[in-house]
């Protein structure tokens, strides 16, 4: 018999559904599997390649590497894998997590401290996991007069936009989520979305300090986007393309930083400002405006924004590598194995499986992709190191000094960079149809 609970609670409903699912599974296992086995005894198995199949062979064929590896390889070519795992979110999130940990430890070393130490037994390696778990389970407070839909949307939008930025970065030849011809323009478009989110956060939380922080972020990001875009124009002129992969391929012989150090410096400073990192962390300046536009965000909302900002950090560092440091290009360091790829071979089943022969589907990843990824990660780590370093060395600047740097100095330098690029193009040294 069933009794309707006097006070309905969602938890009971969920629990009831889970219970029922559990029982269905138990009953199916206890009754269904014997039934299936009994049925299988009375069914004739097909004959393939002169061999009679039985259930064991079916399972064997499914789990055997020769059978599975091509499937994995095919899966790795899908968009889903690219978005979720390798050049996309998973890879970037892994790097972001490493960056947070390295930042805390490195800052601690600069300051003669130890940093996270006891969490996770070994040098505090699980500190980030603990922070994440805590943030997930923390209460989320919405201010009473906040614009609730917008307030909820802000962290999600921020993380999603950062994810979109990550999707544009080519990591290795052919390994990019969105390989579009106007890649650089898409980058500008995505960057232009961040100030809107910060202003939304400031406005939606209906509080003073977030409002000031949002306005500051707007000032800062908008005024630094112009030198950021201008500093990249030189490369576009020299390469004649906006596709990021093609820009990387154009740097096989030399990275563009050799010819455009000024542009690289301008771009690096703009990165710091766009990322709101010290010395340009004015929108979150804690001693002036409590935490800036993050003030009212609590629990996992804050966690999402932090995740987004570190994804953004990775994306900007990767963009610097792609544009100025030659992306995946570099000397060959990965050992070359002369294994020919064999996919078209037939299915080799049980007795022959123990024989060592060419396994179809291997190598899973092409050699140049692994080599390129190694170089890409090394270069990105170097750039991230230089992005993290100012935090231990510099104090925070003031908003008017910051805007002055942006409008008076960086834009001028960016134009100097453009003139250098123009000179190189018109003198015929490099560029489309140039000597080099």
């Amino acid at each position, binding site marked *: 018999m069933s*009794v309707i609970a006097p006070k309905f609670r969602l938890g009971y409903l969920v629990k009831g559904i889970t219970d029922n699912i559990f029982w269905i599974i138990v009953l199916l296992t206890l009754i269904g599997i014997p039934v299936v086995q009994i049925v299988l005894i009375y069914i004739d198995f097909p004959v393939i390649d002169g061999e009679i199949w039985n259930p064991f062979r079916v399972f064997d064929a499914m789990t055997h590497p020769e059978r599975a590896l091509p499937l994995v390889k095919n899966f790795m070519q899908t968009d889903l894998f690219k978005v979720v795992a390798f050049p996309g979110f998973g890879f970037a999130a892994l790097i972001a997590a490493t960056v947070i940990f390295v930042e805390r430890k490195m800052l601690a070393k600069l300051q003669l401290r130890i*940093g996270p130490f006891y969490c996770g037994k070994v040098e505090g390696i699980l500190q980030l996991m603990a922070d994440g778990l805590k943030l997930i389970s923390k209460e989320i407070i919405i201010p009473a007069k906040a614009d609730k839909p917008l307030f909820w949307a802000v962290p999600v939008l921020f993380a999603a936009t950062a994810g979109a930025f990550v999707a544009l970065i080519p990591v290795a030849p052919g390994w990019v989520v969105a390989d579009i011809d106007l890649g650089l323009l898409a980058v500008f478009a995505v960057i232009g979305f961040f100030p809107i989110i910060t202003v939304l956060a400031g406005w939606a939380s209906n509080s003073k300090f977030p409002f000031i922080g949002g306005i500051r972020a707007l000032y800062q990001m908008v005024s630094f986007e112009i030198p950021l875009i201008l500093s990249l124009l030189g490369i576009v002129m020299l390469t004649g393309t906006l596709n990021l992969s093609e820009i990387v391929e154009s740097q096989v012989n030399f990275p563009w930083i050799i010819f455009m150090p000024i542009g690289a410096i301008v771009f690096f400073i703009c990165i710091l400002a766009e990322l709101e990192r010290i010395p340009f962390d004015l929108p979150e300046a804690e001693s002036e405006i409590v935490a800036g536009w993050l003030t009212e965000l609590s629990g996992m909302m804050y966690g999402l924004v932090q995740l987004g900002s570190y994804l953004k950090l990775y994306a900007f560092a990767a963009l610097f590598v792609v544009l100025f440091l030659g992306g995946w290009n570099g000397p060959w360091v990965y050992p070359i194995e002369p294994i020919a790829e064999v996919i078209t071979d037939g299915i080799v089943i049980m007795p022959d499986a123990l024989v060592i022969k060419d396994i179809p589907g291997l190598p899973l990843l092409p050699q140049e992709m692994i080599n390129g990824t190694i170089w890409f990660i090394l270069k990105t780590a170097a750039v991230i190191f230089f992005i993290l370093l100012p935090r231990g060395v510099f104090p925070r600047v003031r908003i008017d000094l910051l805007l002055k740097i942006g409008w008076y100095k960086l834009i001028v330098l960016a134009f100097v960079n453009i003139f250098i690029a123009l000179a190189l193009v018109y003198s015929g040294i490099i560029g489309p149809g140039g000597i080099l």
Partner: protein
Amino acid sequence: MVDDLVISKQSKGLTIIDQVNSHNANVFIGKLGDILFKAVDKPLGMALNWGRLWSLWPVHIETACCSVEFGAASGPRYDVERFGIIEAFGSLRQCDLVVVQGTITRKMAPRLRLVYDQMPEPKYVIAMGACAITGGLYFDSYNVLPGIDGILPVDVYVPGCPPRPETLIQGCMLLQEKIKRMKPR
């Protein structure tokens, strides 16, 4: 059905129907569901507690002179970041630990309560110093509360005037022990 229950409860004898409710209506489902719930609940709760105890972010409120030793505790020699405690965190919305650093005056008390109320759950309180525990040296002052028990639920008391940073760190470790044994919410 509900009426049946009510009637049967009014009768004197204990019948089976008395003990039937929504949870044990189907005994098998109820029992196995409990086992499943426990199997998921306990590790999950332990994981949550583990995350919470290694990530205590103290709110930035200084109430009196013990803040000097609190600052020293986050300095290089005593470095509470080893335990995952970050000093000087910006906004209280992201914090989960109030370290009451010393005397609470009558002017500060409502503000302290306000700060505590604005923080998201779960939140913990450490009363640092003799003044925060009993009023300490200022037990007879006209403007000082005799301890903060009246306004905040305190988890750990750290005695001393002011406590040495080691004592504060020990208090934090005691709080971690306490969180480990708490029922996760």
